[in-house]
């Protein structure tokens, strides 16, 4: 069949195909970088939902009701508003990271975006820890000044001159509580984001080898 022979000749001569770079091939294998960043964004929203859900449960407990009676809204409301505003800002950053990483077309750009995403997550964790510490300290100060039992206890220690011991115990207990909550929160974040960040780091290393070879 002559046509087939002609086609064979044409087939072997006609090799004009678009040439894909190593980075483009790498991107085929690693849709995962953008999907990891997308997962970070989605997880941050789920986490937000989770904490909001938890806060509804503790809303009506005894301690919260007592705390509400102190009428310290001028402290608590700005704190809550600031907290939510910063969280919204972080959600925006996570979304922006996801959008940017989906449209990157160079190894260097992808590496930079991976670093940026890791930095955003780290800042987010730091913010949450700092916010927790500030909340604990403000909460403690409100309790010290408003809780009738604590006020009475403070007065007792003050009258005997042992107030240093009292405040010492309060500070130590607060530090222990902070350390425990920090460990708990860091453990939580390690499980939620740590694994994704580690995978992103591995992708970064793989990209580094490609980048080193193309330089």
């Amino acid at each position: 069949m002559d046509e087939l022979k002609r086609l064979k000749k044409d087939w072997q001569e006609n090799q004009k195909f678009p040439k894909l770079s190593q980075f483009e091939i790498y991107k085929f294998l690693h849709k995962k970088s953008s999907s990891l960043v997308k997962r970070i964004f989605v997880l941050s929203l789920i986490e937000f939902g989770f904490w909001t859900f938890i806060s509804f449960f503790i809303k009506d407990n005894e301690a919260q009701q007592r705390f509400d009676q102190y009428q310290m809204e001028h402290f608590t409301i700005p704190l809550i508003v600031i907290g939510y505003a910063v969280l919204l800002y972080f959600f925006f950053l996570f979304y922006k990271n996801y959008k940017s990483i989906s449209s990157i077309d160079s190894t260097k750009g992808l590496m930079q975006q991976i670093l940026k995403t890791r930095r955003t997550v780290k800042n987010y964790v730091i913010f949450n820890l700092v916010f927790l510490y500030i909340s604990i300290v403000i909460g403690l100060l409100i309790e010290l000044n408003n809780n009738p039992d604590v006020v009475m206890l403070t007065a007792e220690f003050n009258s005997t001159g042992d107030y240093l011991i009292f405040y010492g115990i309060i500070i130590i207990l607060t530090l222990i509580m902070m350390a425990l909550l920090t460990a708990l929160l860091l453990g939580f974040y390690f499980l939620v984001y740590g694994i994704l960040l580690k995978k992103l780091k591995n992708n970064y290393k793989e990209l580094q080898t490609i980048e080193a070879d193309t330089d």
Partner: protein
Amino acid sequence: MKSTNEKEFVTLIEEHQNLIHKICRLYTKSNTEHKDLFQEITIQLWKAYPKFRGDSKFSTWMYRVGINTAITLYRKSKRRIQSLSFEDVAYKVPQSESYDDTEDQQIKAIYQAIKQLNDIEKAVVFLYLEDKSYKEISNTIGITEVNARVRMNRIKKKLIKQLNP
């Protein structure tokens, strides 16, 4: 270690990418499908790469995995391909540079006839065009050598019939 393997793999694919392009050329009807199949073959090759022991040449192994992927994907997407968009229909006459505008009418006609063949027949034709022996064709597709010859003869008859209705 994984990183080194990946680098090695990406380099090999870069070197042998024309082979994948050629499979895509026979099995797809649009640039979008071409790109999709290229990506799918690359992913399947990467998944199968740990099992590649170097007993055969990398290109031989690529033929096997690439053709299998094309056949599987072709079977999965049969329904999808039947409902072609306007762009896809327009694509039937190769227009892009990668599909060579200079082909004469006869070559174009035979390309179109090959595209009408079933998935296994396309694989046989593809390996024939790649100048593979019947033994290599049979090994790659997983049929006997005799069967490969019989199929090729049938394909030739089919093509003649299609080209001279």
